[in-house]
């Protein structure tokens, strides 16, 4: 049925936008420090648990608890920078990336100790009732998520390309020394990037988990969002939207039409296959910065 096809495509696109939102966390940190954060999925889980803690465990009303969780997430970002990255200024990017791998193991443990391995209910932030337009049925959390993603992308694009603070962050990523010579505080920039990354992950957790359940395994979304980040190119925030939609639609259609044929989860590997193919054609993604080599 053609209407189904449209529905799968729309829902796929919205799912892709959720991936784009998660991937935005990667991009923000990358754009400000050239560090690819492998622990992004764990940050999503942490953001989710902070909200669970505030709203379900502490019993705060959502209107208070969720903003509070965002503040806490920002504090976590700051702590990560202070504890790990502040000491690594001047070390190679490679070392910093390796730290994020250590962080992945560490954060998983922290979540287990602080919140336990139990499956927890996540607050119902968006109405459970899907939006029904004729035959089309659109999940509300993804719809709102899509809107939030687009808004966040516009906001961050503007921030990075137009505002002084955003541009100085880019300057830090490009060249620590030049940034220093112009009086930019490298540490503050990187701290801000991590705070932003943590807050975005928490936002991603709201959309991802609203009304569902949560435990540490939810971190897998970090890797699911990876093809979107790479497809867009690691620097492009606007590009994430398009890449998200491409990946999401293909995944949505594959899950609907290919999975039953094959009898397996084609939808989950296809994004990686597309990513590989596109990277072979355009090595820095669709919108990533081409490397300008200086010899």
């Amino acid at each position, binding site marked *: 049925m053609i209407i189904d096809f449209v*529905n*799968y495509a729309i*829902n796929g696109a919205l*799912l892709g936008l*959720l991936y784009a939102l998660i991937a935005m966390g990667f991009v923000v940190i990358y754009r400000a420090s050239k560090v690819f954060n492998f622990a992004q999925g764990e940050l999503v889980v942490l953001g989710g648990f902070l909200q669970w803690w505030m709203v379900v465990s502490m019993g705060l009303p959502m209107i208070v608890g969720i903003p509070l969780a965002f503040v806490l997430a920002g504090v976590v970002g700051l702590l990560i920078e202070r504890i790990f990255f502040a000491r690594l200024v001047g070390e190679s990017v490679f070392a910093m990336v390796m730290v994020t791998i250590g962080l992945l193991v560490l954060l998983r443990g922290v979540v*287990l100790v602080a919140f*336990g*391995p*139990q*499956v*927890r*209910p996540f607050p*119902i932030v968006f109405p*459970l*009732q*899907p939006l029904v337009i004729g035959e089309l*049925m659109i*999940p509300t*959390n*993804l719809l709102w998520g899509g809107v939030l993603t687009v808004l966040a992308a516009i906001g961050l694009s503007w921030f990075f390309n137009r505002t002084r603070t955003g541009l100085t962050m880019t300057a830090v990523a490009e060249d620590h020394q030049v940034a220093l010579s112009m009086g930019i505080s490298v540490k503050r920039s990187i701290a801000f990037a991590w705070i932003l990354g943590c807050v975005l992950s928490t936002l991603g957790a709201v959309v*991802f988990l609203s*009304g*569902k*359940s*949560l*435990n540490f*395994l*939810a971190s*897998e*979304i970090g890797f*699911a969002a990876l093809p979107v980040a790479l497809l867009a190119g690691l620097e492009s925030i606007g590009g994430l939207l398009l890449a998200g939609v491409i990946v999401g639609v293909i995944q*949505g259609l594959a*899950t*609907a039409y290919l*999975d*039953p044929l094959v*009898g*397996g*989860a084609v*939808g*989950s590997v296809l994004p990686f296959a597309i990513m590989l193919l596109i990277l072979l054609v355009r090595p820095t993604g669709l919108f990533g910065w081409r490397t300008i080599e200086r010899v």
Partner: protein
Amino acid sequence: MSKPRAPGFATLAAAAALACALAAPGAALAQTSYGVAMLSDYSGPYADVMPMLGRGREVVLDWWNAEVGAKLGVKLNHKNFDTRYDAAQTASLWPGIKSEMKPIAVLGLGGPDVAALSQRLPDDGIPLFMSTAGYGYAWKPDSWIINPRPTYTHEHAGAFKWLKSRRGGSQPLKVGIISSEASPAYVDIARGIERYAKDNPNEIQIVETIFTEVQPTDLSTQVRRLVRGGVEAISIQTNTAAVVATKRALQGLGAKVPVITSSHNGLPASGKAAGGLDQMEGDYEVYGMAIASDEDTPARRFYEKLKAGYKLAAPWNALTVMGMSQSLYTVRVIEHAIKKHGAQNLTGAKVRETLYAEPVTTEETFGMLPTLKFTKEAPFPIEGLKVNIATIKGGKYVTAATNVDTPAVKKW
């Protein structure tokens, strides 16, 4: 310049330190005491259920030592080994477990234990007693891995049959499956049900098998496809996250289709994750063990007894029942072996032989398990298989049916 000489000493020194640390435990065994090793996962993916399951296991062993073993002159020493649900960890622990405890039985937890030990147990002569249902891949004759429950496929086939008879009519029951490729075990369960549907077209018809992630984002389109296809039940044997996501999709669609879960993602656990037991109204959980509902049953009374007399701290739920029943049928088999071969010189092989020689009756397990008649054809009893079904009625967790026959399922 790297010089291999250097780490040599470092390695040796550290190895010595490690050796000291590892050699500490393991007191001399009394003549009439035997070891029962328990493989646990306190820091891996099942860390959330382990405290309940683990307490259930331990307390039953304590109870047996005090009330049964004392009379027989046998004490069963038990000890937990944390495998992190990781085959590599189990493999590295195993030789130490063997030499340290000289176990006559091992209580296993899941797939990685099976993977790491299935080829070794026959050589070592130690049976591995599981608490989970069986898998297609472990369905081999002459096994040293024992399941007290049939395969997950058997259990759900029993539920399908029961649902069909309640519905009446001769049309096959339309079933949807939600599974995941995250673990091969999940895939195995789905393949088993598909095979059963193929062999029994009059019993069930599978509308679709949906593969999703361990933490699904949104299942509304997939579930709508199932609902449109006219499903009468949705079988989910992966995890609670999938159950919650499916329930949300069903609620969004306003569709009332019962979800059938298993012991590890059952109604109380899924209800808790969904924000309340009432969320699971009309859904089912199915397995071949006692249901941990509020009704007064022999199993419940046994639990209360252990709670009062043996400091059983775990709550009355399916996971505690899983741990308790696992220990119970294991100690009963050992008990039979002692009665048959005497308290001295008991071995794992003798325990295993007794398992096939003498059934463990449901009375012996306080109704926690049905009467188990093992044969060498399969790692689980293939005759007289019964399952119990629980549901949520008026927001309350109640038993819907007990001793439901499971149909014959062909090996897949």
